[in-house]
């Protein structure tokens, strides 16, 4: 019924566009006055005034009507059946809804009467929204139709409506972000009600296995996040050691030394690296790089774990090379040519120009590129899940197996979870801490860019 109504509405507003166009054309030929807006704007004006009130009303109805119907049903349940336990009401409610949708059956007379009550109020609410929205749409349609005239500023009105729609769209994006952060914060607060903040932030032991039933014999569960963050930092540092020199130097070569032909081939090739899915990097690290390092380490007399931090770090570094190289390439190209010419006029070689003039001039951009790559590396999940270990290990030896924050979040949230145990909530606390760290890095990079920007222009 509702679908049919929406389709009709769309069709009608489509038709009223042409109707509005026809109307204004007719009035123009009669009046012989210069027109304020072109014909199409009058058509749009009419169509939007038909469509928008119904759209808004139906959206509001979709959001609030289930709640109203549910609370009405719960009241009815309390009135018909005497229930001592209040948690029973929710169970009965979903039972009634399932019966009404035909998923399950029942022959209890009380429940059947509740089902018919539920069907009645659902039908009533649909009828209500259909009547209200069609009346308001018709009303506004006639209001708009009477306004259509040669001197009427339909263009301004339509532009205003479109502008407001865009504002609402951007608000939705902002509200979603706020919602994500809020849900993270709320779960984190729940976690810190169970585990002390100082234990989490400064604890040296991570072993989140706790008893799920009351009679189960298990550990108390240790939630010290230091080993995880140390593991993440270790892998990230290795990644940056790979990515920064290669990325930066190849950006310098591409923008300062290479001829356009090489640049046209090499730059897209490096950018292919950015297009490879992280899963592919993950199994490249786990199945190619890690065994290669382990076997070669054995020949050199080093004992490498097959899930060493080194393998994960190197592959993660490879992943962020294109990020650093293409961002710094852009920044280096943006350095004014007059600086290069001035430096050459003073007799410096090309490498001296790069080191003493171009890099300082491009520094804010390069630093922000590196910080962006850093926060990408810290938040990277798939590579470390596949190539790094799971056991928390407090070490800074790159040949040993370490675990990362994102790995632990994955481990904690895979499968069915209960959301009142510290084990599950720990994932939110870890995610929140990670979010704060990357947020600070992003703020730092924005600050650096803003502070040193356009120093040489």
């Amino acid at each position: 019924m509702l679908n049919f109504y929406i389709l009709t509405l769309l069709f009608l507003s489509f038709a009223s566009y042409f109707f509005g166009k026809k109307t204004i054309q007719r009035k123009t030929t009669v009046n012989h006055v210069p027109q304020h807006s072109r014909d199409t704007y009058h058509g749009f004006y009419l169509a939007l005034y038909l469509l928008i009130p119904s759209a808004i009303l139906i959206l509001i109805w979709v959001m609030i009507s289930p709640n109203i119907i549910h609370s009405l049903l719960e009241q009815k349940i309390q009135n018909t059946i005497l229930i001592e336990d209040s948690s029973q009401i929710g169970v009965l409610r979903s039972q009634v809804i399932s019966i009404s949708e035909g998923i399950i059956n029942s022959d209890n007379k009380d429940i059947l009467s509740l089902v018919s009550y539920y069907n009645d109020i659902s039908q009533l609410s649909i009828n209500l929204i259909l009547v209200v929205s069609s009346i308001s749409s018709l009303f506004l349609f006639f209001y708009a139709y009477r306004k259509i005239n040669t001197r009427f500023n339909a263009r301004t009105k339509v532009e205003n409506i479109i502008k407001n729609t865009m504002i609402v769209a951007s608000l939705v994006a902002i509200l979603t972000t706020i919602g994500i952060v809020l849900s993270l914060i709320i779960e984190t607060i729940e976690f810190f009600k169970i585990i002390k903040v100082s234990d989490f932030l400064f604890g040296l032991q991570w072993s989140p296995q706790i008893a799920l039933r009351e009679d189960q014999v298990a550990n108390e569960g240790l939630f010290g996040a230091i080993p995880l963050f140390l593991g993440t930092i270790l892998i990230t540092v290795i990644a940056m050691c790979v990515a920064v020199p290669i990325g930066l130097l190849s950006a310098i070569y591409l923008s300062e030394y290479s001829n356009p032909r090489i640049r046209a081939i090499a730059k897209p090739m490096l950018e292919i690296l950015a297009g490879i899915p992280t899963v592919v990097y993950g199994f490249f690290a786990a199945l190619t790089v890690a065994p290669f390092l382990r076997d070669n380490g054995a020949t050199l007399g080093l004992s490498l774990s097959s899930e060493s931090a080194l393998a994960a770090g190197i592959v993660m570094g490879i992943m962020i090379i294109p990020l650093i190289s293409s961002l710094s390439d852009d920044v280096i190209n943006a350095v004014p040519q007059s600086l290069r010419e001035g430096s050459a006029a003073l007799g410096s070689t090309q490498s001296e120009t790069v080191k003493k003039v171009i890099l300082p001039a491009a520094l804010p951009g390069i630093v922000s590129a590196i910080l962006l790559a850093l926060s990408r590396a810290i938040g990277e999940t798939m590579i470390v899940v596949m190539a790094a270990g799971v056991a928390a290990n407090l070490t800074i030896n790159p040949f040993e197996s370490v675990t990362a924050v994102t790995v632990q979040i994955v481990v904690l949230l895979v499968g069915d979870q209960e959301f009142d145990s510290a084990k599950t909530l720990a994932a939110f606390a870890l995610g929140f801490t990670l979010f704060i760290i990357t947020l600070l890095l992003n703020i730092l990079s924005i600050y650096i860019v803003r502070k040193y920007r356009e120093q040489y222009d």
Partner: protein
Amino acid sequence: MTDFNSSKRLKSRYKAEKRFKIYSMSALIIGIMILVTLLSSITISAIPAFTQTSIGLDVQMDDDDIQQFQDDPKEVSWRSIQKSSLY
């Protein structure tokens, strides 16, 4: 003072220039080599997934077997037939 070209300082500066150019060029080459290694290692590991192994075998059945096959296919000693045709 006037002969700059023969001065030691200029020579070392040109050497530094050459070194820097080689460093930056090798960084680019390493980057492209990594890409090539990655793609080729994935391709090499992927190719076996597109191949299928099969063995063609001529099977010899004597008259007894054929008689039994017509009576009841389950009762034929398939294993001994398989063995005799394999070796």
